[in-house]
């Protein structure tokens, strides 16, 4: 795996892109958000301090999903009325990107679906109970969550910074498949995958939790 190194346009520290699919990273020293533009790095913003986070996952955590090893490369942190959740950017050994979401220690692995199996309804038309039949499964919108982009960390496969309000539509099926429609862009993005048990991911290199064993 190539590890191109460039210097932070803000502080000059080395910014490492460990994953070839990564487009955006965060300078570990000055917390500048930098994106790759051709061969140059451009500073596009700065990460504010992230709130204390109870997630046992961290960047460099390793795990296994469907017999394929992955490593956590970055994350997006969202906040909503009832708390916050993490979308961890995971990179598999073949370079493919996915997402491990951790919402109150309920885990799901999803992958971006491009192109979407059908044009997605706009945000104002989506509602709870709406059904979609995709890839042989009946997805139902179970929850609409207006959330706020709270911050990023590590490497991401697309530029994602300085967002404001984001609407998410959670989709579930009767067989534990899981999906999210992300209305942060137009047209909306679709992620499909499944709910997973903590044990099934066989996570290593977790954060230490005082008084608890993983």
């Amino acid at each position: 795996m190539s590890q191109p190194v460039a210097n932070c346009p803000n502080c000059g520290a080395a910014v490492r892109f460990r994953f070839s699919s990564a487009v955006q990273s965060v300078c570990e020293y000055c917390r500048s958000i930098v994106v790759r533009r051709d061969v140059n790095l451009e500073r596009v913003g700065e990460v504010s301090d992230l709130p204390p986070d109870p997630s046992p996952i961290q960047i460099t955590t390793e795990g296994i999903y469907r017999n394929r090893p992955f490593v956590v490369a970055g994350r997006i942190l969202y906040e909503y009325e009832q708390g916050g959740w993490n979308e961890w950017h995971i990179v598999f050994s073949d370079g493919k990107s996915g997402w491990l979401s951790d919402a109150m220690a309920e885990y799901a692995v999803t992958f971006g679906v491009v192109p979407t199996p059908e044009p997605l309804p706009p945000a104002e038309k989506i509602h709870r109970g709406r059904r979609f039949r995709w890839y042989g499964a009946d997805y139902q919108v179970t929850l609409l969550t207006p959330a706020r982009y709270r911050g990023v960390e590590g490497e991401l496969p697309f530029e994602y910074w300085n967002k404001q309000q984001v609407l998410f539509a959670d989709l579930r099926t009767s067989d534990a498949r899981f999906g999210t429609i992300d209305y942060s862009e137009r047209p909306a993005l679709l992620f499909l995958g499944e709910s997973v048990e903590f044990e099934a991911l066989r996570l290593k290199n977790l954060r230490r939790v005082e008084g608890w064993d993983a």
Partner: protein
Amino acid sequence: MSTAPQVRSLNCTNCGAPLTIRAGGHTLTVVCERCLTLLDARDPALSVLQTFQARQRVQPLIPLGRRGELRGSTWEAIGFQVREIVVESVAYNWSEYLLYNPFKGFRYLTEYDGHWNFVATLRALPEETTARGRQAVRYLGQTYACFQSASARTIFVLGEFPWQFRVGEAVYVSDYIAPPRAVSAERTQNEVAWSLGEYLPGGEVWKAFKLPGACPPARGIYSNQPSPDGPNARSVWTVCLALVGLLAAMMFLFSVGARQEEVFQSSYTFSTAMKGETSFVTPVFELKGRPSNVEVKVDTDLENDWAYLSFTLINEQSGEGFDFGREIGYYHGVDTDGSWSEGGRDDRVLVPSVPPGRYYLRVEPDMNDEDGKAHSVRYQVKVRRDVPYNPFFWIAGLLLLVPPIFVSLRAAGFEKARWQESSFVSDSKSDREDE
């Protein structure tokens, strides 16, 4: 390597009492145990959300902060609430313990009258359906019948919770059961929260959390309490039916193996008009093979009359005899209810375990002679060696069915008692109103 923050020590904004937050980062609401105030755990100033009045303080059976091993994981009790539903103006309360593990998230233990359930939120979406005319849901291939739906209010709360709420708030709760499991839906305006509970004997909770003394005994039958006979009934039926099958096979083999050899047959006439000795002996016949039964069959032409036939089966060599007799009576006629009949014209006697040898029958017929009329009968005597004889098998077969029928009846009684508590059994409701 960073450490995930978990435990925070704070003081209540309202009364200053010390507070502990055990699931830092998740907890949105924390309750001061001393002044029963709900505080906003996300707010650094710990602002007061609500101070509630409790009819009475409730002591959780599992102390908050206590850890226990359940289903292979460690869980810490961090929150406690009492919820109430009102059915036919009777209030029912149950307790819910919020359990936390920083890696595996949140679970619940619910307790009602000594009945416990270990509850997890569902990852798949149950499908609403109907089963036997009842509302039901299907979840991962199993059908859960709707047991009860009611509005549930939180009336007492302690500890901390990863959501915001106020005491007194209500959600609409529906329980669907497939013992020992139950699926529950909590419906609010924005969401249906589905969870799956599994019935847990109180003793397991006591052991898991190392609680002192003995658990309070479970009273009554709980909605998803497994029937003590439910799983038994099936295996008892299986075993008993297998044994009945075995018996039937044995019966078949014995029938096929029986010689059923006709060794003697003759017809006779008897009349009360006959004078002198009425008894006679038959010619000698041979009974072969191993010791086995002998069937003596009598066919008569009786018409509204009876006859008594005494027999002795006598071994020619030893003179040893088997005595037996049969009264045969046949009556029939027509009355206002139509035609009727009573008794029969034939009968048979089975003499068990007769050793082989040469035998003859001594026969002594008798008929009613007290009415001064003449009575007579023609009858045929037929002797067969080694006939299939099955009553033992039938009795054994019937006896074998007793345990499964008993278990099934008891299981049915349990189910009836269970569903009497359901809000969907209308007749039991009216029964209770009559009391």
